[in-house]
């Protein structure tokens, strides 16, 4: 049996896990298992990013069988994807898969946006950052709106719980965000 990751070396490690009620087995060669362990551990986390990438790999494997009936367009897309390469650092999908979903540089986030968003969807709570930001960088209108929505909900629950002091604080923060959003709108409108 060949290794699920590199599909070259003989698989020596066989892992069985129960996922969504189904038994899933993964077969790895020693080298890839080592790499996978470094990339986040075998089952040390509740999820493993590498698996997100594996599934992508398996999907295309299954699709290969249906290759005959596949229209030419789809095939071209796939070929194009497998030859995708980051012009900045030379990263490609094979490297991404082998490293357990890692990227080579900031530019990779754009080049492999499709796979990044798949990974983000599996692992993260949403796809927009709302925390700390560099002093020099303003926030995107989207992030401001997202935080505003969240605070509105908190405000509603604070009011219904009659926590007026907290509600007042929330209202102030919402007003500040409104001003920020308006400023952002102006800035983009002027362009």
């Amino acid at each position, binding site marked *: 049996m060949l290794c699920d990751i590199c599909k070259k070396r003989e698989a020596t490690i066989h892992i069985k896990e129960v996922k969504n009620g189904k038994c899933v087995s993964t077969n790895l060669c020693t080298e890839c298992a080592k790499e996978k*362990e*470094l*990339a*986040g*551990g*075998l089952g*040390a*986390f*509740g*999820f493993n*990013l590498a698996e997100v990438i594996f599934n992508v790999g398996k999907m295309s494997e299954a699709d290969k069988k249906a290759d005959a009936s596949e229209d030419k367009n789809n095939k071209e897309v796939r070929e194009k994807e497998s030859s995708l390469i980051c012009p*900045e*650092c*030379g*990263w490609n999908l094979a*490297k991404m898969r082998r*490293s*357990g*979903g*890692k*990227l*080579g*540089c*900031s530019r990779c*986030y754009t080049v492999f946006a499709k796979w*990044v968003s798949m*990974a*983000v969807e599996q*692992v*993260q*709570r*949403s*796809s*927009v*950052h*709302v*925390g*700390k*930001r*560099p*002093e*020099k*960088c303003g*926030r*995107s209108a*989207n*992030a401001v709106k997202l*935080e505003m929505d969240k605070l509105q909900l908190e405000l509603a629950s604070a009011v219904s719980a009659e926590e007026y002091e907290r509600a007042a604080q929330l209202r102030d923060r919402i007003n500040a965000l409104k001003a920020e959003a308006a400023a952002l709108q102006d800035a983009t409108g002027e362009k």
Partner: protein
Amino acid sequence: MNQAIKRLLQNPVSFLTSVSADGIAISSRIRLSRNIAGLPFPIAATAESAAGVINELAPVCSRSAFVGEKKGMFFEIGKLDELERLLLLERRLASSELIKSKLPSALAVSNDESCSVMINEEDHLRIQVLKAGFDLAGCWQKINKLESELGKETEFAWDDELGYLTECPTNVGTGMRASVMLHLPGLVMTDQINATIHGIRKLGLAVRGIYGEGSDNSGKLFQVSNQITLGENEETIMEQLSAVIRQLIEYERRARRALLEKDRFALLDHVGRSFGLLQNSYKLSCAEAVEALSGVRFGVDLGLFQHLKIDTVNELFLELNPGHLQMRSSLALPESEQAVLRAKLFRTKLRERA
């Protein structure tokens, strides 16, 4: 021996021996991942680009109010021998990825060892703050300042939607991993630990043993951390983690009470045997010592020892490690001789406290 390493060996470890250390929560840590804009991440780096990262960051670190000259130490990992690297790992200042890195890598550490900045780990920068007890808020306060300070002199890789860009998309956004190390002998001895870990994982948090992967249960020590880094701000992530930690501490207290009421002799036997083993052995493996010391720590928490302080126990958790043992004897020793040395350490430290 490297001079700064020598200084480290003299240092009491603030995150382990500070008086604020709680019985159940041993220490808290926050780590932020950052990269320099425009340079390839370490996984795609060449030796040249990696050296460039160090050249850019070393002067920034040396001017830092936290880890700068006179405030801290700076290590080029490539110039340290294996034992010196092990020492940094055991003191939790460096990760195993950093000390094994094939690229030029470096580490800046504050004198009190509460702050460290790893250069060319999985990301260009891994900034970390460690504190004794359950104090994520304190960690955040400090690391927030340290990160801002470094960010003033360096442009971090950033995207308006995704936040801070990291080598692995599992860290993107805040780039923050917050964790608390807990000693949970009550939950282990009452057989509730597996269900508890399962429950915590279901909440989207990670639980691991602290002596690396696979050693899930060693010393009944566990590390609980957040997994989500994108879509919530740092305060919210910490609050969600803290809520779970508070609950865990409460469960552990309850389990301890139940043991004291229903199974008092089993508990006393466990603590007594652990102490006896440490006090009377002439050869102790690392795993054996960790297990027994965990039992003694439990006894200290429960007030069963009059003269043994929790600080001493916490410090022994560090001193029993192979790197520390060998550095103290300034010799690289085979495992069997380390076991003799380790046993001697415990016999001496515990003799006067019986």
